[in-house]
């Protein structure tokens, strides 16, 4: 009680400060923004390894992203929460329109077989990138005072809601982005206090689904398969690659084989800019600015560069979780855990593919990969997080997401 009183006094004092003073004082947001800038810097350098022009493009996107970041500092968290649901709905409508045949091709072209871009002249925008952010915010807003997810039906309802944007993104098709939603929501529900046995059940079902699909790929005939042919081939290629079988290295396993080769060849300290550039060019690594940027990082700066990048992500994610710990606002708490989940899932999938632990799935590496939409979305997220971190936490009489009555009772 003493600490609660103390914190409410300090909160009151902070509330009286002008907004710009709030941002300038030391808080977790600085750590978040520092990590993001460092990662973005690595990204620009990595992109510049093979394409200096793309690197300058990325710098331009970075400047625009900073402007957006500043914009995100203005609204109060409550307003962000209120707007999140309508903005998500707008995203869903846009995503819906994108996969219908009604939209003209010039507006939504098919890039690499996927209709995930909206084209404005020479510029393009990928709505699924921002949809991820607003999905997290909308779900955090919905769940901040809810208790329904404590029942299995309530829990499944949350996943049912998630299926709407996921299905639309999946339909584009953009499997990588669609996949990120699942662990993100799952982690949000874990910290929101969903029952462990229900979550365990979901994990069990997910593991069973993966196992059944894998078994089907290797054991069942072609007409009984659950996955699409190219997905089956990618899975086969990954296992073949792990076993040292080279039969896919010129087809489905080409990208992953090149990725592993270039990562391994980076050694401890990497090749440096010029030689890495030559190597990547001559080995014809596909998607070297986007999905395979991590390969460029390790090839240029070696294991040390790779581990430093992973450590920055760990620090960033840790900062999000720290903010969730120190902030008392349930909306903020769930939002930042969701953001951490988003970044974690993307990094896990992207790096997992690059080092050969997961089948090939196209997904960007947050802050590092080349691309305006991804970068804008990520800095919007950072802006909102800094906004949350800088402002004094609202005072709540009841500790939120505390359902473990026995522990609370014992303490009181």
């Amino acid at each position, binding site marked *: 009680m003493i600490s609660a009183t103390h914190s409410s006094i300090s909160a009151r004092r902070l509330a009286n400060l002008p907004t710009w003073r709030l941002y300038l004082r030391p808080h977790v947001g600085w750590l978040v923004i520092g990590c993001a800038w460092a990662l973005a810097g690595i990204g620009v350098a990595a992109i510049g390894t093979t394409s200096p022009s793309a690197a300058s493009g990325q710098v331009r996107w970075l400047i625009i992203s900073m402007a957006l970041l500043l914009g995100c500092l203005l609204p109060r968290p409550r307003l962000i929460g209120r707007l999140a649901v309508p903005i998500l709905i707008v995203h869903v409508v846009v995503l819906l329109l994108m996969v219908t045949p009604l939209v003209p091709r010039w507006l939504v072209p098919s890039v690499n077989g*996927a209709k995930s871009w909206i084209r404005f002249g020479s510029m393009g925008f990928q709505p699924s990138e921002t949809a991820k952010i607003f999905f997290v915010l909308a779900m955090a807003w919905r769940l901040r005072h809810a208790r329904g997810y404590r029942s299995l039906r309530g829990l499944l309802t949350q996943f049912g809601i998630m299926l709407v944007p996921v299905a639309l993104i999946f339909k584009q098709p953009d499997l990588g982005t669609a996949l990120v939603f699942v662990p993100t929501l799952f982690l949000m529900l874990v910290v929101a206090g969903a029952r462990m046995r229900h979550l365990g059940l979901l994990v069990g079902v997910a593991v069973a689904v993966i196992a059944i699909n894998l078994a089907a790929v290797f054991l069942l005939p072609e007409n009984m398969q659950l996955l699409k042919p190219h997905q089956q081939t990618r899975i086969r290629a990954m296992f073949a690659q792990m076993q040292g079988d080279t039969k896919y290295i010129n087809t489905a396993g080409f990208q992953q084989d090149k990725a592993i080769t270039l990562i391994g060849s980076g050694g401890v300290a990497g090749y440096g800019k010029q030689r890495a550039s030559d190597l990547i060019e001559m080995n014809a690594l596909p998607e070297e600015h986007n999905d395979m940027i991590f390969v460029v990082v390790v090839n240029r700066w070696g294991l040390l560069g790779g581990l430093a990048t992973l450590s920055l992500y760990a620090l960033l994610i840790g900062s999000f979780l720290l903010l969730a710990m120190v902030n008392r606002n349930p909306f903020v708490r769930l939002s930042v855990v969701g953001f951490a989940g988003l970044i974690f899932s993307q990094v896990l999938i992207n790096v997992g593919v690059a080092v050969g632990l997961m089948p090939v799935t196209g997904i960007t590496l947050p802050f590092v990969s080349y691309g305006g939409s991804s970068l804008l979305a990520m800095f919007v997220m950072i802006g909102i997080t800094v906004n949350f971190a800088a402002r004094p936490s609202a005072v709540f009489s009841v500790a939120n997401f505390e359902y473990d009555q026995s522990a609370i009772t014992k303490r009181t």
Partner: protein
Amino acid sequence: MRRRLRQFMPRMFYRRLLLVLAVMVFAFLLLGIQMVNLTLGRGAELQSKAESVFIKRTLIPTVRGRILDRKGRILATDRPAYQIAVHTDVLTGDWSYRRARWHVYRMDRARWREMSDLEQEAAAARVQSIYDAQVKTLWWELAELGGVTVDEIDQQRVAIVRKLQLIKGDVAQRQYVRRSAELDEPIDFAEAVIDLAEERGYHAIIEPMDQAALLAARRKLSEAHNGRDTDGRLGVTQSVWQWVRVTDTRNREYPHESMEVDVDRSTLPLPLRSDEPVTMRMDGVGIHLIGAMRPVWAGDAERLGLTFENKDDAGRKNYNLYGYRPGDRTGQWGVEATYEKILRGARGQTIAHLDTDEVERTVPVAGRDVRLSIDIHLQARVQALMTPELGLAKVQPWRGEDPDPEKKTPRIGDDLPGAAVVMEIDSGEVLAAVSMPGFSREQLAQTPEMIFGDPYWSPFMNRVLTRAYQPGSVVKPLLLTMGVSRDVIDLNDTIADEHGYYLPSDPNHFRNWSYNYYNLTMMQLAGHALRGDEAVARSCNIYFFTVADRLGAAGLIEGYGAFGAGRPTGSGLPEIAGELPDLRWLNAQNDKRGRVLNMGIGQGPIRWTPIQAANAYAALARGGFWQSPKFVVSPENANDVSRTGENAGENVGGGVGGKSGGEDLYLNPGAVRMAIDGMWQSANEPFGSTHFLAYNYKKPEFSELPKREPIFNVTGVQVFAKSGTADAVKFRRPIDDDGDGYPDRYGELLREGDHAWVGALLQPEGADRPTHVVMAVLEYAGSGGKMAGPIVNQIIHAMQAEGYF
């Protein structure tokens, strides 16, 4: 644990946050570990793999060494030749299939991904005809270039594909047997099927080409490889010609494989004599010795430890320029196989580093020449003499009457297989080594079943080195030296043959040959008991039964072993050891004494090859110094290389073995002189067993002929000879039940009777001792001197014609 955690961290939210953090840390650790594994664990391998793109390797072919005869004549050499080779995928039709799939994929990638396998197949099948037509056009163009018909190209294509399938099946079968044996249980056959390098390689479809065709093909290839589509993009349109290559094959040629030989018939035995020389065309001259080339088979390179591409412990690729690549050729048998390491040489290469513009050059190492001791002209002459058409390698009426018609002994007029060796005594160099019947390269290519499928005639077998025969009486001069040198008989001792048989208790066995044929003892024939030289000259069995009986099993085995029986001679070519019993085995036999007595006259459990026999005679002529015979005179250490060559000995049933070198047998010099003197008498005295051919007056064809004619009618050369008529093991058809290449049992009787041997030492006028040895054997021919003697006589004439005396 859970309780403690709750006490330490009462807030559920914090505990859940901790859980999330733990999961994330664990996942990141996994990623980090995998990165460490890739960069540190497999770093060297992957670095080499990644950097291999900077290296453009161009191989420079080498030239295989020549094989020369003792006079520098070229027996085998490489000749530049070009051929057009086509990739396996085009030959099998896989290329058009894959192009068709790629075609449909490029049209609409997204749709392709949505399709099931069956739909993809159907879509590809609809466009495959475009690519099939390209391939068909290619066959027409190639036919035009090579000046052959499209049908011939197609036959060649089908033959290549079938051969690949056969090799694949064969390799899979071997793999299946090996893996099943390793695991001790049968594996799934599908697991044994492995991809072969040949399946990813190019195969000759036209060979060899003339210059005009070569130029046209190069132009076509250049267009195909520089092909741009309408947008000028390089390599977007793919021509099937991109899967065609002009390859430098370097054909192996054997300039002396076929030779014409003039045979002077004026010195032949009277019934065959003619004043008209005859010109005989000899094919496959020296083929058993020289050998041939064959393509490298799957697994060869691994077996020889000479794979071209190797990985070190860190997984980095290394290239062994001495190694074999698919499509390379290697020796199949003979000198080509045994001296492969000397002849082969190593490729050269240029390595262009695209990143630094450096170029490294390694010049090719040409294979070294191998110079044989063989005189190819003499070899051809000896081969001609042993050709049945001339008449000496046929059963002639002067052998005597045909035996019992029920017997499988060759009858008058039948062809006879056999072998002959000519060797220089001092050096041990073999001047000629002929095994008949032989074969030509053309016969091998066209009717291999004739070459490999006949167990009795077995043309592929080199009888000089890999067939062992009972020696018969040719061993008697050797026995004399053994007996005297081991003091079991004195030089001047005489032994009387009073009964015609050796053991009074067993008068039907261990008889003298004269007693068998004419019911006469040697006492009756010679009028006195025989001394050693006379015993050799008259081939007296009783004398040598006595010597053998006194030497005993140990002495005989030791004596024969010292002359080289029962071990390879170390000639440097694959050979067998022959047969010499183990003393313990012989001692354990019930009829040990009988066997020992038989060994005294070159019968019983002893068999040797013609090269062993010739070498034993050479040792005798050297006064008892045994040394290895030589087929290769340079490089000097070639014999040692051949013994380490792991492919030595394949296909011929023997291995390259035996020690190379010499040893003193410590023979009594008087005994050696006496043995050689006995041989002189044998060949030159009227009573000698190797002296004359007798023509039977009862036969009308001999009515005009004198009663007798000397076997040897050479002038200017003294001949010391000894014949042998060896009671041979019956030859039964070998039956290989399990298909492992070795007989499991024996079937019908194919041949029986006696092998005919003659060994001769030759001393030119003016020389103080013999300089050459000639050894000949005719299988199941009957009487030794009468059948093999005329051949040895003609070989001496042939040597004279070639300027040896």
